[in-house]
């Protein structure tokens, strides 16, 4: 599913990259299909940068990163959108489209995948029922609570049944009850066969849901297992 060999990442414009410091250095790890990984480390350790790489929002500046058999560094640009459509991403700040309704936010990945309007209603309705948001389907996300918005984000991330689900501090804006409910959803996805990687610095959450972890410090992988 994921195979990283000596992966490094620098930010900056092309040409200026060589002068920028590496935010990720020589990462080598692999995650099998259907696996679970916590992504741990203090702020600035490189968790979000690694998630950007895994979400194909950046390409490694050195090393080799393979996602679902696709070499992210070498792939042609036009081959990346289909790869992204097989990856779900949940952000701490939700990143919902504020001018769209809850229904349309969840339907967005299906529309991007070219699903006909007549064929997506049942799937979206079922997904909203799964996350318990059927009653707010026609509301704008800005009118919802943080927990409800996070569930919309989850629904949007999993509506296309992704092979890889990434979550960046997904419980950061949630109270304990909402956070537990979110964890149940993520674990259910994992049980259904989706590879899940959850970045967090909430060690209490990790303790309550123990599992294998990748731990980063200053851009380096210091623990795998």
């Amino acid at each position, binding site marked *: 599913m994921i195979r990283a060999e000596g992966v490094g990442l620098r930010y900056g414009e092309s040409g200026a990259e060589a002068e920028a410091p590496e935010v990720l250095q020589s990462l080598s790890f692999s995650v099998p299909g259907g696996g679970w990984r916590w992504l741990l480390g203090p702020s600035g350790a490189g968790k979000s940068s690694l998630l950007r790489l895994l*979400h*194909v*929002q*950046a*390409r490694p500046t050195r090393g080799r990163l393979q996602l679902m058999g696709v070499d992210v560094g070498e792939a042609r*640009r*036009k081959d*990346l*959108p*289909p*790869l*992204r*459509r097989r990856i779900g*991403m949940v952000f701490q700040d939700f*990143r919902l*489209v504020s*001018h*769209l*309704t809850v*229904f*349309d936010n969840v*339907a*967005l*990945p299906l*529309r*991007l*995948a070219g699903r006909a*309007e007549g064929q997506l209603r049942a799937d979206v309705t079922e997904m909203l029922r799964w996350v318990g948001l059927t009653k707010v389907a*026609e509301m704008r996300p800005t009118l919802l609570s943080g927990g409800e918005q996070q569930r919309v984000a989850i629904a*949007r991330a999993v509506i296309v049944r992704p092979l890889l689900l990434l979550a960046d501090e997904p419980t950061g804006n949630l109270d304990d009850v909402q956070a537990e409910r979110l964890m149940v959803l993520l674990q259910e996805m994992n049980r259904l066969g989706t590879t899940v990687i959850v970045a967090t610095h909430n060690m209490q959450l990790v303790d309550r849901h123990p599992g294998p972890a990748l731990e980063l410090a200053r851009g380096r992988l210091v623990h795998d297992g």
Partner: protein
Amino acid sequence: MARRATRAVAARLATSRLDGLGLRHAPGWRVLPLIVAGMAFLAALALAGAQGAAELGRHWQQGAGATLTVQIPRPAAAPTPPVAQGETRRDRVLTLLRGTPGISGVRPLAEAELSDLLRPWLGTHAEQLALPLPAVVAVTITTDGPDLPALAARLEAAAPGTLTESHGPWVRRLGLLARSLRLCALAALGLVAAVAAGIIVVATRAALASRREVVEILHGLGATDFYVADRFARRASRAAGLGGMVGLALAVPVVAVLAALAAPFVSTLPIEAALPSPAELAASLARLPPTLLWSLPAVPVSAAMIGYVAAQLAVRAWLRRLP
């Protein structure tokens, strides 16, 4: 209940499928139709100018450029060679002209026509002044035409003092002027199109800047460059097309007035001192060159196409920053 559901579906279609990026409320689009309307107005005038110059050039080329004027002075004003019984100098010239290859028409002007030509200079009593007016023959030549110096020499021999006046040199000059005007008009048309494209690019970038976050969300969800660029391009195309239609609507009356004013110069219509009436303006639209009649409706279509292509290119260039 059903009405509410219908409204919800309509709202969803309006906000998502047709405008998934919320571009309807993005800055830049609102003023775009107004600016493009101005550009389309100028483009329509430039188009009409180019067509008008081409028509004038063609008319001059086919009219005055294809004619000769031959003046045969009266015997008192020129030496008189011996002539056959009953044959006048004018008859000899006409016979010679009619037998010359490259001449398709020979028409001697009547006395009344000569008086009409002189009336602007000599007044309404020109014929009573007893001036020794020459006989004048209007000659139409073919495309190849005769050898003019040789023809002049033969006419001089047949009727000494005969003058042959070719309109070719000044018609060629006018033709060159018409072609230059046409090129200038086409250059202005190209410039207007380029400026319009530039304005559309700027408006698109403004809309893009205001929707950057949503574009990045869509990109992360797997939207292709075409999907994103197409949303912007459709909006830009619609705004530009609307502006093009407004600009064309404003330009049509102006083109009609110019066409009515230019009509006598490109046809046999008499020149009227008074400005054309609304009915004459409407009629002048029907007399526009077919090429112009077809090309004017192309202005809003072209504006819409320029809008689509310019916005597509602008958005795609911006999206290249993303992996």
